[in-house]
């Protein structure tokens, strides 16, 4: 079969799956397997389509659908194929996982959930493959609206509805910017077809506006700071398989949009484009992970960590664009490879982590890590897979998170070499230190998430009675965890694939990424040196053997069981460190950013004054951008509405009066006074 067949097959499969909307809550068991099965098959077709395109070359087709704006065209080039692969892998895992997870939602609206799940996947595939402004914008809107509906699926809860509305407002603000960017380009090109777009014919001012519009528009979807406020609200309240899809896959469509604009449409721009992106990127990294570290809601923690990871991708994009403007194609090649590698990695490990969080939620019915604990003994497989996800997001070798972080570090390291002047050089170096800070905070964050939620004693009855989830939920997590290991152990395959994807874009050159030997990734331009994962793994394995041998030096180790030392008191779960306590010192040093508000409530009634007092301690942190940007905007809009209210009093006579006044004014105007 050819790529085009797989393309149509995938559209048909997702559409068929989407039809389950009409089944409502009847036969949920059957709908579950049929609809999610169709979604899984559709994702398989997506993966195959991507592989065929990468193998055979660009696929162009005209959809038999005519709109006032012109003929709908779809084009799957290697960049689109890369993102199709990402959607396929993330979607496949989510579809299989959904077969187990979505059983919680059996009921009147179940058909809607499964149907929208399929439509969501369909819309993302269309966003990636559309090559016509109208088609792109329609697909983009469908994607936004369907994900809004999915976030708002449990609309009985007020928090969900609020989150969903913040999401839909923010995503539409973004869409306005995206449409503006497209229309500016389309007017200049005289066509709505992507192939005709050429930013180099635009005047410099217009080009800057297109750049800003595209950056803001896609940035809002990606969840970069300060446009991130919807992300930590919307992602956690959706059903977990949807969260995995939204955080793992959907926000990547924004990265795809940026790639299209910055690599293809706009051409090489001035240096400040890259500089702006780098500034926003490092802000997203540090603040995103800091908020994640302060969070005790497991899913919201993961959502904030998505903000951080988008920041890491933007660091790559920003440095890539600086290199392109400075005429350093080899360095630009490295930076863009880092972007796409991290993009794929994040899709894998964030989906994995959200599925792990979903499994915890499924069996304990709580997302609050302060109420969890001891899950490693009750849910051993989930714990193992979550640990792999946590280690890879903390960029520990030899997992895939390390590879893309390493590539990003290398790209940033080359930044001072491409810049001239002391201040830009220093700024480039400080970025590396801040990325190092981000890495350390991410490690702290995921040590906390895993250590408090899965280790030690359970902190509540819910955690005490947790049970391992079914195999159909564990299997996709196992697959993704395996992928984390594979992409880390043997990064050459993925780097070769990405080099193929990026090879045709002007302004960058990926030749330096290709390696001559099987065991190492070398960046051949300048003497930056290389990376060899088999070497690192070999060292680690030999060292582990040495360690084990040493512990057998005096015969087989014997282990005696003895209770944890707690100064003579019988240990209980209240003595354990809490997540809030764990992140306490870091909260304290970043207090000027986080502005924590503490409240301690001491209950002294009927208890001994010196011992056994009931204490409750609450910490709330302040979100700078919510307070400094969004609150004032909110207040202004509300104030204006209040002002308008006095004009719009609801009295018919008054309205007739307005009409009369306007008519008189128009008559006077026309009379030429």
């Amino acid at each position, binding site marked *: 079969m050819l790529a085009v067949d797989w393309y149509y097959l995938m559209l048909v499969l997702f559409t068929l799956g989407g039809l389950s909307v009409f089944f409502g809550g009847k036969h949920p068991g059957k709908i579950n397997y049929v609809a999610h099965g169709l979604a899984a098959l559709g994702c398989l077709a997506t993966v195959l389509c991507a592989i065929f395109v990468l193998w055979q070359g660009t696929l162009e087709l005209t959809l038999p659908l005519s709109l006032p704006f012109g003929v709908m065209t779809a084009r799957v080039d290697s960049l689109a194929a890369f993102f199709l692969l990402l959607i396929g892998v993330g979607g496949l895992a989510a579809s299989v996982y959904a077969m187990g997870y979505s059983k919680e939602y059996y009921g009147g609206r179940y058909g809607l959930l499964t149907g929208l799940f399929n439509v969501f996947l369909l819309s993302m595939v269309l966003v990636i493959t559309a090559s016509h402004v109208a088609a792109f914008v329609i697909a983009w809107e469908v994607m936004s609206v369907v994900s809004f509906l999915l976030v708002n699926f449990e609309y009985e809860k007020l928090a969900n509805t609020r989150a969903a509305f913040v999401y839909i407002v923010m995503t539409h603000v973004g869409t306005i910017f995206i449409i503006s960017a497209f229309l500016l380009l389309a007017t200049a090109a005289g066509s709505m077809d992507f192939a005709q777009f050429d930013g180099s014919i635009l005047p410099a001012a217009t080009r800057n506006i297109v750049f800003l519009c595209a950056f803001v528009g896609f940035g809002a979807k990606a969840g970069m700071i300060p446009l991130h406020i919807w992300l930590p609200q919307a992602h956690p309240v959706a059903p977990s398989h949807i969260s995995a899809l939204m955080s793992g896959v959907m926000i990547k469509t924004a990265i795809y949009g940026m790639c299209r604009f910055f690599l293809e449409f706009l051409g090489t721009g001035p240096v400040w484009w890259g500089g702006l992106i780098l500034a926003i990127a490092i802000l997203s990294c540090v603040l995103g992970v800091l908020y994640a570290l302060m969070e005790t809601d497991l899913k919201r923690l993961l959502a904030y960590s998505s903000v951080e990871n988008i920041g890491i991708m933007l660091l790559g994009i920003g440095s890539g664009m600086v290199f392109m403007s400075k005429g350093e194609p080899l360095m630009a090649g490295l930076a863009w490879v880092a972007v796409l590698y991290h993009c794929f990695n994040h899709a894998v490990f964030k989906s994995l982590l959200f599925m792990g969080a979903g499994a915890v939620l499924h069996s304990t019915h709580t997302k609050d890590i302060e109420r969890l604990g001891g899950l490693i003994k009750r849910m051993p497989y989930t714990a193992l897979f979550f640990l792999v996800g946590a280690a890879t997001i903390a960029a520990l*070798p030899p997992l895939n998170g390390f590879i893309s972080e390493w590539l990003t570090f290398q790209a940033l390291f080359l930044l001072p070499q491409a810049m001239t002047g002391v201040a830009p050089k220093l700024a480039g170096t400080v970025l590396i230190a801040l990325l190092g800070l981000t890495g350390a905070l991410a490690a702290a964050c995921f040590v906390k998430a895993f250590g408090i939620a899965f280790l030690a*004693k359970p902190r509540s009855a819910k955690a005490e009675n947790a049970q391992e989830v079914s195999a159909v939920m564990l299997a996709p997590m196992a697959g993704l965890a395996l992928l984390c290991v594979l992409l880390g152990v043997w990064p050459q395959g993925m780097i070769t694939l990405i080099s193929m994807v990026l090879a045709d874009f002007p302004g960058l050159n990926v030749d330096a990424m290709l390696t001559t030997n099987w065991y190492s990734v070398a960046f051949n331009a300048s003497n930056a040196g290389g990376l*060899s994962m088999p070497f690192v793994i070999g060292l*680690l394995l030999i060292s582990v053997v040495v360690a084990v041998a040493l512990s057998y030096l005096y015969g087989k180790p014997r282990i005696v069981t003895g209770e944890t030392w707690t100064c003579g008191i019988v240990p209980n779960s209240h003595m354990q460190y809490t997540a809030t306590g*764990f992140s306490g010192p870091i909260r304290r040093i970043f207090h000027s950013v986080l502005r924590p508000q503490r409240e301690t409530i001491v209950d002294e009634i009927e208890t001994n004054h010196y011992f056994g007092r009931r204490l409750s301690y609450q910490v709330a942190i302040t979100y700078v951008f919510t307070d400094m940007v969004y609150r004032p905007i909110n207040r202004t809009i509300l104030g204006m509405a209040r002002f308008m209210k006095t004009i719009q009093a609801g009295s018919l006579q008054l309205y007739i009066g307005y009409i009369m006044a306007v008519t008189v004014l128009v008559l006077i105007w026309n009379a030429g006074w």
Partner: protein
Amino acid sequence: MTMFIDMMQALILLLAAPLVVGIIKKTKARLQNRRGPGIQQLYFDILKFLAKDSVESPTVSWIFRVTPYIYFAAAVSAAALLPVWLNGSGLVNNLLVFIYTLAIGRFFLVLASLDAGSAFGGMGGSREMYISVLVEPVLLLAMLTVAVRSGSTNLFAMAGTAMQESFSLSYFFAACAFFIVMLAESGRIPVDNPDTHLELTMIHEGMVLEYSGRPLGLIFWAVALKQLILILLFVLLFIPWPLAGVVTPWVQVLSIVVKVLLVAVALAVAETITNKMRLFKVPNFMALSGLLSLLALAAQ
């Protein structure tokens, strides 16, 4: 072949590590007018620990059990990555691989500290992550002063560049910055006190409180190795004299040994003349190091 040489290097460093700790302890003791234990004491301790049974809490999981091996392996791997034999090829001995290999050990040790469910472990783990958040960016900055100059993050290239350069003010700043980071990263006064079990001050000791017997022996040894690794890195990158080409490789190795001993003595002196710092004063201390690195970078 490269791997074999690197592994041999790691094993030699592993065997030498307890001696360096012994020298530091002895020097400290002499400076405090005590006789102190012999410099070979840590070897006896480790051998004794390696022969003992261990006690394990019923609360712990397999994380607690595998952590000593991982912590040990991470330290040994990091030691193997060091550019000690300067004529080695070492295409892949990257700075970031080195830093993140050490991070593996820390990640698991902090997890293990939470595993037993005692407040001491959590306290130590929490503080360890706090210190690492402060140290990581500053450590990177200090190393970048050399890396930027050599245009490479490869440790061999960095050490090679250091050997070509003559003394400059920028170098001096960078060396001071790294020395501060080294104090913090290896858990010494004024950041952490390696000799105390007092819960108000301990960081590292808090994390390993639940360990005993063979696992504890492995952890002690790994900590000693980590100390030596940091001293060596300091020596290789910031005290490159005598410069390359002046002397034969064997004299070079000998001079490295001498310089390591000198830095060990300097550490002991630094520990004796300073006090343990309040935990929340550490950011200022690290900021000082960061500032020195930035000065060094700007002066280049």
